[in-house]
């Protein structure tokens, strides 16, 4: 049964890897920052 246990662990590892790729990042990436004066509102 030892070979079966090893095989199961491998499967779990692959699925875990896949889920990380599909799961979106926790970050929102800012592409550009625009800075206006207080009269025009900061962006």
């Amino acid at each position, binding site marked *: 049964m030892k070979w079966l246990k090893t095989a199961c662990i491998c499967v779990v590892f692959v699925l875990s890897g896949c889920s990380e790729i599909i799961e979106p990042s*926790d970050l*929102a*990436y800012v*592409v*550009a920052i*625009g*800075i206006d*004066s207080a009269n*025009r509102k*900061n962006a």
Partner: protein
Amino acid sequence: MQIANPIAISGGSNEEGGEGGEKTISEITVTAPTIYSAVNIANHLNSKKISLSHTALIAFCDEIAKNGVNDFADTIARSEELRPNTHITVVRGSAKEYLSEIKPTNEVNPVQYYKMIYGVGYTGFIPKNTSQKFYISSVCDYRDIVLPLSALKKDNPENSEIMYEGFEYYTKNYLAGDVDAQSEEKTQSYGMAIMSGGKMIAEAGAVEAELYNILTGQYSQSEVTYKDERTPDRPVTVTQSQQKKPKIRVRIVNQKPEIYIKIFLEADLHTISGQYLIEEEYDNFETQAKEEIKTAVDKFLKKTVSEYQSDIIGFGDYAKRSFKMYDEFIEYGWSKRYPESEFITEVDFHIRRSGLVDRKQG
């Protein structure tokens, strides 16, 4: 803030890929005293944590630039997120309106769009300064900086100065917003904002930005039009490149800076007057072009001392080598002495390739 929409960029789980276009970005607008306080406010509006690590562009409105941007330079340098190659621009008008009109039509990734607009080597009409140089110029005593000018296209563009003197012959010295182009893109980047002591003091046109790039060695390649004295109605357009950075020496003579600069340029012929510019006459054209470049460079350098009074090229970096101690250089007061500078310019210009047509006389 303009935020990337990764699902529209990559397509998420869709095998067909991303949609691209304007859906790749969304906007958050907040009022805050600093960049990071704005990030803090935006974090409460967005389900994900705001990260500046992929920020490609920081745009200042001209009003902020005229009041001074050194505080922002400090933020940019201290931040472990903002990268040293982040592009910085001054917008003629509102920065928010400028960013709102950005439509990355030919790019799927908006970061790539900004890199292509502000950082590529085959355009010469805007300076290529990034956040690292921006910060260094804000703290050093030997140079000022210029930033690219951006703007929304005006409905009624102002008439730009036309160059009649040879270099960029018949080309308009455009400022951003004044380019009368028909395009889906409503945003334009041409010319440069001249900074002195961290404040914007003047605007310079696209041709002057090209000369700036040549003098600083940032120039890579662009299409340049020259006047041919024998066919003034038929300008000659070459693909010009700078394979070697300019040679600069600064001496202090009678307490005045004497600046020697030699420029090295190469060109491939693209559009010539088919009537008679043949192989035997390349030397004549090279001599003419050298004179035309020299005239344009001399005029631009004179403007930096008389009108801008700002060492935007960074000659101070070479001048400080004339002093034994840095304290002596500080005591000399480079920024105040720069307007007294005298220039000796030399141009090395060679035609390298004639294109696929090469006619010989006879």
